């Protein structure tokens, strides 16, 4: 049976079929020559097709985000007056950082521009919804900021896609294709953030604020700097100034200014500053892993980081950090259980650091950094 089968197969492709063999050889040679001259073009076509499909997905995310932001504003404001045009205008809002040619005083200029931008977003929300409370204004301003980021991402990818297509430049297309998976990951995280911001749930970035909130629970608090509250908490016989951004609306506050304020109030008589913040995990690390270190862990444009470094250096105060590791997607989406569960371990570490590095009766600052959405004080 097997021999019969093999012989019939041989007959089909066999020696008698010389013309077929010639055709196969010529087509193979033709294909080889064509590939030599047009191989790169073919590769460019395939890469452009892949980029096009990601660009389409990016456009869908941006559009869905825009619709979500508009419908949320409509739900609260209960009017339709010119809302879409106003939101669209905001989505094209540009931010130009200060000039770096003369670096002297750049932090002050940067802080001013960042503040103006933040106020502009909040003012726009207040104009659209005059009766909105502080929490709603903050959450909606964050939502609009996320949609703006999505719009910028989409436009940037589209720009390089069209440039690459126009010039047929292999290197433009290759570079875009290389960074595209990261861009898509980031845009999906933004999409998830919109759902979370709409519901006002705590996000991964708020872990520092969550630790501070647990420490200040039941204690009196006061606003020490714009959108930052502080409580005096006795821990291990020391007086600890615990600070966080004012919640439960989405807010990062000005922790740098708050730390500077406390240090100036106490004339630098602070034994230690401990900063708690979320940090990006490396591949292989687990979300919610806790790590310690030295320095100032405050994200953002660098204004607050600069202020803390400057004032700590002025009074020679040791700086400690406790970091909670999390992935890019976890930072702005609803807080993962593993991250939320790390709070107890962080508090244990803070107690140990205070015991080991300060004396009884000392003053200590604990700063819980991050967006305090969904976390009160």
């Amino acid at each position, binding site marked *: 049976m097997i021999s019969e*089968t093999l012989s*019939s*197969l041989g*007959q*089909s*492709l066999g020696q008698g079929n010389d013309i077929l063999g010639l055709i196969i050889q010529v087509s193979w040679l033709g294909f080889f020559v064509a590939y030599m001259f047009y191989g790169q073009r073919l590769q460019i076509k395939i890469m452009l097709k892949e980029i096009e499909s990601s660009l*389409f*997905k990016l*456009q*869908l*995310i941006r*559009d*869905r985000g*825009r*619709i*979500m932001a508009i419908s949320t504003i409509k739900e609260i404001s209960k009017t339709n007056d010119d809302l879409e045009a106003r939101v*669209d205008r905001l*989505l*094209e809002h540009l931010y130009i950082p200060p000039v770096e040619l003369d670096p002297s005083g750049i932090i002050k200029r940067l802080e001013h521009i960042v503040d103006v931008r933040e106020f502009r977003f909040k003012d726009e929300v207040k104009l659209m919804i005059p009766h909105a409370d502080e929490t709603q204004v903050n959450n909606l301003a964050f939502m609009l900021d996320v949609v703006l980021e999505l*719009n910028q991402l989409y436009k940037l990818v589209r720009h390089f896609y069209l440039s690459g297509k126009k010039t047929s430049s292999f290197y433009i297309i290759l570079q875009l294709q290389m960074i595209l998976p990261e861009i898509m990951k980031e*845009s*999906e*995280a*933004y*999409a*998830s953030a*919109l*759902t*979370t911001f709409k*519901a*006002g*749930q*705590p996000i991964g970035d708020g872990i520092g604020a*969550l630790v501070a*909130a*647990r420490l200040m*629970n*039941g204690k009196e608090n006061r606003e020490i700097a714009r959108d930052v509250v502080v409580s005096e908490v006795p821990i291990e016989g020391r007086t600890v100034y615990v600070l966080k951004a004012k*919640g*439960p609306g989405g807010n990062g506050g000005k922790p740098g200014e708050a730390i500077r304020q406390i240090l100036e109030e106490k004339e630098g008589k602070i034994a230690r500053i401990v900063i708690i913040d979320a940090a990006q995990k490396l591949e292989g690390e687990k*979300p919610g892993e806790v790590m310690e270190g030295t320095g100032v862990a405050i994200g953002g444009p660098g204004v607050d980081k600069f202020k803390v470094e400057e004032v700590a250096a002025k009074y020679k105060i040791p700086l400690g950090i406790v970091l909670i590791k999390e*992935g890019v*997607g976890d930072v702005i*989406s*609803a*807080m*993962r*259980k*593993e*991250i*939320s*569960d790390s*709070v107890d371990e962080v508090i244990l570490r803070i107690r140990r650091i205070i015991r080991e590095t300060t004396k009884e009766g000392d003053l200590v600052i604990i700063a819980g950094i991050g967006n305090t959405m*969904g*976390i*009160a*004080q």
Partner: protein
Amino acid sequence: MEEPASAAKRISYFFIVIVFVLLALSFISLYQAVETYMKYKTADFTTLVLSVGAITLSAYLLMQMRKQPMKLGFEPLKVFTTVQCSNCDFKNTREFQNGDFVLKKAEACPKCNTPTFVSSIYREATEEEKK
């Protein structure tokens, strides 16, 4: 802003026609191969392999077209709220409700009647994230 993208997944009708034509030709070719075998008791393996291959390829392409719409990241996540008593060890986890926030005062503790508070709000990681 330009016009928003309308469809969740674009499928070219030209592509669908091509796939169906390919599928029809493969079945005809397969039928001819079987008929030849029945008549002459000789298997035409080239036609057989090519037609089965083309049927498999068309079936794969059709399955790809039937795929679920792409995930954009807006899918709602399951979020939970843990309510804890500030006096005893009572703890209760329920689904997140609009208006919940950490340190929000909640209902009285069923064990000791002390007011409870929201101690944490979290989501379970998806299977994909756990990998």
